[in-house]
């Protein structure tokens, strides 16, 4: 097994599916010769040719519409949205059109489109590149939204996303692309969408999180362990639909929970998780469920990211409030 970074695992997933299914097409801005601005599609055009892996003109709505049209002719488009901050340009194609393909055709047509995009922050990109807009797509019925936090998960989840018959938004945290390596099998394997993963087991507190905050939460759990607290860390992996079973089972075991997201507090995912816990497991709770999030401002300029993004220390502080309630 090879030791891969998350971005290598992502490339590997696309390579696997390009090989497996001739209907898979990979396209977007600069994904061909250049291999993508983050090199996620590196080498794919060379291997599969310009017919299967190709550059498009620079226009996000056009790329989204292209994906929908290609899906209508039986292809499985894997489109790259160069940065998720450009989502607004393609919002109609994603939320307005692709999401309703099955619904508006009474289930006769489908849009097996995978929309890959780097997101999140902490890597000092220009304004409107880094952002946490996952709430905008997770709020849209008809879409599935996947956010891996490890190389192994990234490959298995991306293959599942490409095979899924529905439009799937696959968000790749920019900070995780090359932050660590992990053993990733060479062959095809899938991780089901909508299934969370317990990244660390514990009995006193559940931290429910996703994306880059999984690493921060694991750091926080270790720090809390030193103070004698046994902390469970759940990586949602798919934020729409949520894996409520795993969430509730964990809360029923630990009786205490905090939800951690990199996005602003009002952005929705953590609030959703809290609501599910309140509806389903309120009697198991020994303390209120608290959230760790970024503050409700516009995503800051590069120099301000560090003071703005939630960190392990913030998670530890909030966890202690819940543990000591």
């Amino acid at each position: 097994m090879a030791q891969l970074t998350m971005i290598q695992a992502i490339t590997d997933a696309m390579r696997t599916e390009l090989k497996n299914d001739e209907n898979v097409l990979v396209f977007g801005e600069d994904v061909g010769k250049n291999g993508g601005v983050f090199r996620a599609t590196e080498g794919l055009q060379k291997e599969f040719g310009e017919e299967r892996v190709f550059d498009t003109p620079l226009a996000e709505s056009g790329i989204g519409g292209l994906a929908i049209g290609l899906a209508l002719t039986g292809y499985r488009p894997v489109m790259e949205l160069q940065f998720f901050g450009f989502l607004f340009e393609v919002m109609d194609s994603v939320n307005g059109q692709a999401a309703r393909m099955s619904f508006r055709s009474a289930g006769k047509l489908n849009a097996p489109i995978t929309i890959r995009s780097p997101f999140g922050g902490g890597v000092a990109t220009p304004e409107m590149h880094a952002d946490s807009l996952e709430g905008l797509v997770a709020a849209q019925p008809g879409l599935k939204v996947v956010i891996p936090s490890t190389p192994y998960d990234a490959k298995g989840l991306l293959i599942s996303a490409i095979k899924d018959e529905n439009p799937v938004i696959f968000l790749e945290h920019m900070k995780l692309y090359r932050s660590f390596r992990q053993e990733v099998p060479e062959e095809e394997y899938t991780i089901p969408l909508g299934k969370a993963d317990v990244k660390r087991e514990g009995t006193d507190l559940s931290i429910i999180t996703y994306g880059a905050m999984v690493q921060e939460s694991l750091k926080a759990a270790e720090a809390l362990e030193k103070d004698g607290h046994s902390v469970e860390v759940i990586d949602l992996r798919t934020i729409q639909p949520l894996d409520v079973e795993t969430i509730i089972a964990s809360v029923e075991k630990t009786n205490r929970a905090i939800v951690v997201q990199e996005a602003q507090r009002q952005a929705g995912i953590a609030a959703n998780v809290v609501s599910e816990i309140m509806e389903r497991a309120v009697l198991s709770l020994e303390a209120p469920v608290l959230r760790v999030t970024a503050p409700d401002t516009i995503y800051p300029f590069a120099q301000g990211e560090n003071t703005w993004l939630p960190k392990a220390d913030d998670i530890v502080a909030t966890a202690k409030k819940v543990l000591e309630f």
Partner: protein
Amino acid sequence: MAAEKNKQFDPTSVLHEIEEKFEMFQILNEDGKIVNKESDPNLSDEQLTELMERMVYTRILDQRSIALNRQGRLGFYAPTAGQEASQLASHYALEKDDFILPGYRDVPQLIFHGLPLHMAFLWSRGHFLGSEIPEGLNIFPPQIIIGAQYVQAAGVALGFQKRGTKSVVMTYTGDGGTSQGDFYEGLNFAGAFRSPAIFVVQNNQFAISTPREVQTAAKTLAQKGIAAGIPSILVDGMDPLAVYAVTKDARERAVKGDGPTLIETMCYRYGPHTMAGDDPTRYRTSDIDSEWEKRDPIVRFRLYLESKNLWNEEKENEVIERAKQEIKDAIKQADQAPKQKVTDFLKIMYTGDMPYNVQEQFDIYTEKESK
């Protein structure tokens, strides 16, 4: 006064040169006479008659739809009278396997491509079964977002191209649609990939109430294709022979691999924008209306066919009676559609297994609806 600068450049003249090139293409004039014999598509007598039948049928469908809407027996309806040549003659140039991405006014083309009439009525009423497109019928439900069909058409066209299918995609928008970003993105993509797409702009003069002159500084809408490197033509959209000829030509070039075409059809809608409260007398005068009524596509085509002894009152009445009967039958059929249930909606929300939230709600509504 300062001396005039010595200029070696004149972008305005370039614009004017391009604009001047867009003359309106016509074959059949308002009196039903051929004025452009060398471009006559030479349709057979049967074809000419069939096209006329479709136009007359559609005019009746429009009148009946307006009446049914007023009686509360239809839902959303966008009148089509005045646009029959633009809609049906362009569609007449297509083949069965060609794909249509319509705007909300383009229901007649869908019907003649194979959409059962009662389904068009169900769509109008907002019943989900109106969009349950029959297997093998290459259409998409009418698009409500202005311009969205243009970018999607670029995708279908690229799909056909990649599959090596000898089919084209045709998509329609109006004059207002040419102001949308998606209009340019769709044209640019299809142009860049040289894909087999035909982009029809039905210039019916008004985007709801906004006149074309307020919509854009461009003298023609056809010239907008030039910026994307796409062959473009302005055609008399009330002349069925001209519309057919340019579309047929566009189709042939697309199938040959010569890429997309933009066709601006100059036409008029006699009715309101939709039946949902739009009052054209607020923004149009009766003088303008009657000016355009003189160019009526059905009147001129009737004159032409009568001169060839292909049409008479009896034939027209036959079509009218048939249309009325079929509309009546289709309404009856639409009336029999099952009442919509939330469980139906939840079932078609996703392809494949239901996500937990949908499944949970499905169970709740199954219980509720069983009572």
